Structure formats: C-alpha cells, structure tokens
C-alpha cells in the first residue's frame, strides 16, 4: 500500500476515527486504525468493539492499493504536528514491514499489526431507516445527555432512550435520559420512516462521539437501526454502535401532570444568581434553596464552615402568583437545565418535596423533571 494525501485532510479523518479508540487497551489491535487505500479513496476504520467509526477520504493519490493497521493515537499525534500544507506519504511494503510515513524531510517507521486481526463489527440487518437534519439531532442530544446516569447497577440508564411515540396527538421522535435525580425529555416531529422503530438505548460514549461528528455539518444525518445496533451516516463518516440491552423505565409515570404553582423567571438572571449563591456551599451537591412569594424569589445557600449567601430576584424578572413555597435543588442540576434554555425558565411545582417540572417557556418540545432535595 502506498498513497499520498494532504496533511489537513488526513488529520481531520484521523481526528474523527481515533477518538473511539480507548486510551488504555488490553487488546493491542484495538489501539490501531485500519487503513485501506484503493481507487482514489482512503478508508479509515477504528473500533472499541462497541462502536466502530469508518471514514472515506476522497482525493487521495493511491500509488499502490493495500491495507494495514497502525497505532491510531501515535499516527494522529504525528500528523497533527506536521506543518500545515504538507503532503503526507504512507508506504507499507506488506506483511510485517513497518509503515513508512514521509512528509518533507520528516520520516518515521510505525510498527503495524496484521489486518486479519482487526475486528470487524458486523452490523447485521438494520431494518429501520430515517433521516434527521443535523440541527435537530444536536438538539435531541444536547438537551438530554447531561441527565445520562453513570451508575453501573442500573446500566440501562447509561444512555439516551430514543423512540417513536405520540405527544398530544402528534407523532414525535423522542429522546429521554435520566439518572434518577433529573429527567430530560425532548421531542422532534417524527421523520418519515421512523414510525415503526423499536425503542433503543444509545450508550453514552456513542452519544458523545455522535455529537462531535454532528458538530461540523448542517446536512441530513441518515440513521439505520435494529433492536441491537444503530448506524449514523454523517457526511463521509459512518458511526455504528451496539445498543444497551435493557429496558428503559416507564418514565411517563414520573412526569407530574397536576403541578399548578408556576414560576417564570428570566434565565440569565436566574442562572447567574444560582451560580453566585451556590459558591458558598462546601458540600459536593451544593444545595440551593428557592423561597417563593408573590412575584418574588429568594435564592439562598449556606455552609456550616463558610457562612451563607442569598440573592433576591423580583419585579421585572420573576412572575409567581401562587402560595408561598420553599424548595431546594442541587445547583448543578439547575444549571444543567438552564444551560439548555434560551430566555425564560418555567417551573411547575406541586410542593416543596415533590418532583418539579421545568420547561423553556418558548420551546415546549423540551421538558425536564427535577427531584428536590432537603435543604
């Protein structure tokens, strides 16, 4: 195998694929990227056995087609440090010979591992397919992924639950994530072809890789899935992942319907006040107390060692008409949600100890549920 490619093109493709490679690997071949050159195209593949990323790079001058595998992180590091505009030549004589990389007066020999050892992730049949604009997919991910759990016992919470359902008589594609303390539920209009999809749990790592790849594009992203695998086509990159084999909880039951104490507060002022008040707290959970009265919100936090802090919001930025209420939340949980809200946050409370519903007053398609904590 021998080909020449522009440094910037190779770097971008390597950046895409090498991030799925686990930094600490017990299986040496999984640290490698598979390079296949042929017919003007270079194909790069990396996998951790759960996720596989394949990217096709056109415009490569292939002198001799062939395939080999080389250490992904090292190759990426080297290419990253080459000067901008450099032409990179990769030359592999075959067999156990080293992979020679030349760029200008720089050259290196990289040790390779046999192509036959590189695991191929078989997709099997992916009977369902639809596509989503990249922007919609980003919103589904951004507004839910902060709530993904990291706990091992309830492994079925370690991802985003994606499924088709009906919301107020409208067909929607819905993403849900929860760690038990907060829940995020976001929906988009149901795309063609998604009506019959099985509900699937997409693992956290896949979600994060997908989000990185979806950053650079405005195009449609094609999605194909079965009940065990999912594949995303993002431009020239193909991301295939196993799904979490488990049952997502019946989340609808925990979304309160009758919460009637409504607070509307300006996002900017509220989020900043939460951050300032919580700074006093020395506990890891940084509890913040919300004390509500007619059109008046007092945020407070205290710590036995460091003292206490409070901030009042009223008049222009707070609307509240119900009976006085006191309730506490973790500061980080509040901020994770307000980060997803543009202008006005709407809270719906039942009382000081029941789950609270939070929405973006301007965007009803995203809904959050937050468990209060004792303060």
């Amino acid at each position, binding site marked *: 195998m021998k080909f020449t490619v522009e440094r910037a093109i190779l770097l971008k493709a390597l950046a895409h694929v090498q991030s799925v490679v686990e930094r600490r690997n017990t299986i040496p071949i999984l640290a490698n990227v598979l390079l296949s050159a042929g017919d003007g195209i270079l194909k790069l593949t990396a996998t951790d056995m759960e996720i596989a990323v394949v990217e096709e790079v056109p415009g490569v001058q292939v002198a001799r087609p062939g395939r080999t595998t080389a250490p992904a992180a090292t190759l990426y590091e080297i290419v990253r440090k080459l000067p901008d505009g450099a032409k990179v030549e990769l030359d592999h004589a075959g067999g156990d010979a080293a992979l020679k990389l030349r760029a200008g007066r720089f050259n290196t020999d990289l040790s390779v591992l046999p192509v036959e050892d590189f695991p191929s992730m078989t997709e099997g049949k992916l009977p369902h397919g639809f596509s989503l604009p990249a922007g919609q997919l980003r919103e589904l991910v951004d507004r839910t992924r902060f709530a993904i*759990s990291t*706990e*091992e*016992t*309830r*492994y079925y*919470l370690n991802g985003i639950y994606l499924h088709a359902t009906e919301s107020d008589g409208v067909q929607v594609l819905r993403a849900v994530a*929860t*760690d*038990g*303390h*907060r*829940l995020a539920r976001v929906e988009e209009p149901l795309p063609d072809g998604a009506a019959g999809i099985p509900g699937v749990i997409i693992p956290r790592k896949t979600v994060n890789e997908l989000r990185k790849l979806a950053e650079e594009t405005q195009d449609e992203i094609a999605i194909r899935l079965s009940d065990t695998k999912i594949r995303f086509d993002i431009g020239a990159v193909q991301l295939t992942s196993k799904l979490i084999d488990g049952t997502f*909880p*019946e*989340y609808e*039951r*925990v979304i309160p319907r009758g919460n009637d104490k409504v607070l509307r507060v300006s996002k900017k002022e509220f989020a900043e006040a939460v951050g300032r008040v919580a700074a006093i707290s020395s506990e890891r959970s940084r509890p913040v107390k919300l004390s509500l009265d007619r059109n008046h919100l007092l945020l407070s936090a205290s710590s036995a060692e460091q003292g206490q802090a409070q901030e009042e919001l009223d008049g222009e930025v707070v609307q509240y008409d119900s009976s006085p209420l006191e309730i506490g939340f973790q500061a980080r949980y509040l901020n994770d949600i307000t980060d997803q809200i543009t202008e006005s946050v709407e809270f719906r409370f039942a009382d000081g100890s029941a*789950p609270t519903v939070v929405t973006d007053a301007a965007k009803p398609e995203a809904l959050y*549920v937050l*468990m209060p904590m004792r303060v």
Partner: protein
Amino acid sequence: MPALCRDCFREVPEARAACPACGSRRLVRHAELFSLTVAHIDCDAFYASIEKRDRPELLALPVIVGGGKRGVVAAACYIARTRGVRSAMPMFKALRLCPDAVVIKPDMAKYAAAARQIRGLMEGLTPLVQPLSIDEAVLDLRGTAALHRAPPAAVLARFARAVEREVGVTVSIGLAANRLMAKLAAERDKPRGFAVIGAGEAPAWLAPQPVTLLPGVGPALARKLEAAGFTRLGQLAALTPIEAARRFGEDGPGLAARARGEDSRPVNPERETKSISAETTFDRDLAAIPDLEAPLWRMCEKLARRLREKELAAAGVVLKLKTAGFALRTRNARLPSPTRLPETLFAAARPLLLREADGTPFRLIGIGAQPLAPATGADRGDLADPEAPRRAARWQAVEALRARFGEAAVVQGRGLKPRA
C-alpha cells in the same frame, strides 16, 4: 506480690502456694493484680461446651458443632482440639483428623439464650460491656471497686464461678491495662483460665513473640513484614512512628504502637454495626448460573430480614463467593439509593455474580450490606424507579404472611432449587 484465690476469692498472703482458707491451688498472682481494670472474657469452646452441658454422656468424647456435610466447624471441644480440629476448618478436614468425633448441628437459639444469660451476668459487673461476638466480650471495670467492695480481679473470679454454676460453661479471662493486652492475656491461659499482663511488662512480654500474635496481622501482612525483615514484635516495637509510616504506610505507626502493647480503644458498649450479611455453604459445588441464583435469592431475603431487624438499609452490596478450591472472591457494587428489599439487593448482586460465574465451581455464596445506611430514606424510589415504594409494600405483605403462617407460606419461584 499480691495474689488471689480463684475459688474463694480471698486475698492470699505472699509466698503461699495454696489458699490458706480453702486449700485451692488455683491462685492468680501479679504485681498489678489489684489495679488493672480491662478484662477480655471468652467462653471456652462455647457451642461444644453447651452441648456437653446438655448431654453429659458426651463429656469424654470429641465433639464438633458444625453444619451439614459441607459446612465448617463452628466450635470444637478441647478433646477434638487435641487432634488438631480448629473452628472455621472445613468439616471434611476436621473429620479426617478426628473421625470419631460426635458432630452436632448448631442450635443457635440455645446458644443465644446462654449468651444472653452470660451477658446479663457481665452487665451486673459494669455498664461498660462491649460484646465482640456471641461468646466474647470486653469489659472495663474502672471505678467499680467501691460498688463491689472488691477489686476487679476478685469480681472477675467471682463472675467466672457464677457462669460455671448458673450457665454450665467455663470462661477464660484476660486482665490487663487495655483491650489489646486483655485479649492476648485471655488467649494465653485457656480453657478456664485467668491470665494477667501488667502495663509495665507488656512490651517485654510482646517483644519475643511472632508478629502473627497481633490481631489484624494475617498471613498476607505477615509475609509483607517478613519480607521487610520483621518477624518478632520487638522489631516492630522499636520503630519510630516516622520510620513505621515510611516502611508500612499509614497503618505503620499504629502497628508499631500495638507491637509495644499500646491500645487506646475505649470499651464502647454501643458498638456500631459495620456490616450485615448472610451466606450459605452448598451441599455440593455449584457452577451453573441458575443453580447459583437460587441460593443468592434466598440469601438476599435473609439479608433483607436482618436489615429490617437492625433498622438499617444497604447503601451497597458485597457479593461473596468461595470456589471449590477455597479461594475467596468478593465483589462490591454501590446502590443508587439505600434499600432493604431483597429484589433490589438481588438486582445489584446478580450482575456481579454473572461476571464471576465463568464455570468455576463454587462451594459458598453470600451477600452483605456495605456500607450501611439508616433505614429512613430507604426504598423511596426516584425518577428512574417509581416502583420502589410499591415493591417495599409488597415485601412487607409477604413478610407479614410468613410471620403468621410460617416461612413456607410464600416462596418466590427464583428461591427454589432448579430441578436436577
């Protein structure tokens, strides 16, 4: 040197080999005899002694108390011990050493009743009684001399006699200046012993002893110490705290202090429960997952019951497995929120079991609650588990039925043995 008669509790004048009042030769003599206050009391071969008490025909025979074909020795009488039988030894090994032993299945209710009786007698001596196990306790008799009109040594000798008369078993007593030395003293003179180690002589007494004498120095630590050239306690005792920390990490200074006989732990009657667990040894080795799941479920139910009795909850679980080759495997999992329900314990332990059940034959499975959490706040459920309160109610109903109609009134299918 002050001395005391262990049979009539009188002070014996110096240089007498027998008690002038009752003629007994069971004297205890020590320079600090009447000033030491910390006592470690250990019942001699407790379960076996109770069985012999109830069946006098067994008195001259080796008796082993232990469970089943595959269980371990819970207690061995002193006759069995002369053949090499020890507690916690697998039963097959014990029977190989002592084939004529009379093996008795443990009757925990009977032993607990005797233990309560002994505990009652202890509490008559001092409020500072800290039970360490069913047959072991440490007492601090500081400041009780005026009440009893006798020094602690005499009070303890009287107590030993009372246990023999009222309960029918013997105890061994260690009297010293702190808990560590009292325990070592109790071990020194068994059975029916009364040993004293004074504060002044502790370091000299410990110095020539092997490091393994110290409680907490097991085979692994002993190997580590030996590799560093430490085999006798005197060598450890000579280390300054800084040297000890450098050589053996943060536990080093404490180890060196204990090697000098220092121990500042008070006798605390309200000992905190640190962990609660339940385990079972199988009649035959098990390897298949369904075969292991059934006893795991039963142990989860047992653990749930024990948690309820102690008003505690599990914030995490420990799965314990012992292979047919006696290798111990323990695996931990943290729970998202505390629980007292067998289903939630099982759900947390099952993935741990699945990872270990690789075809290895096991002889024992157990589950423990660790760390423990207060019962309030357990099984409230959260956004990902709205069913928890209902599960809690269901389990309570099952337990209520069992309390009324017996253990077998309600049995969950997964607790049943799979068909062979």
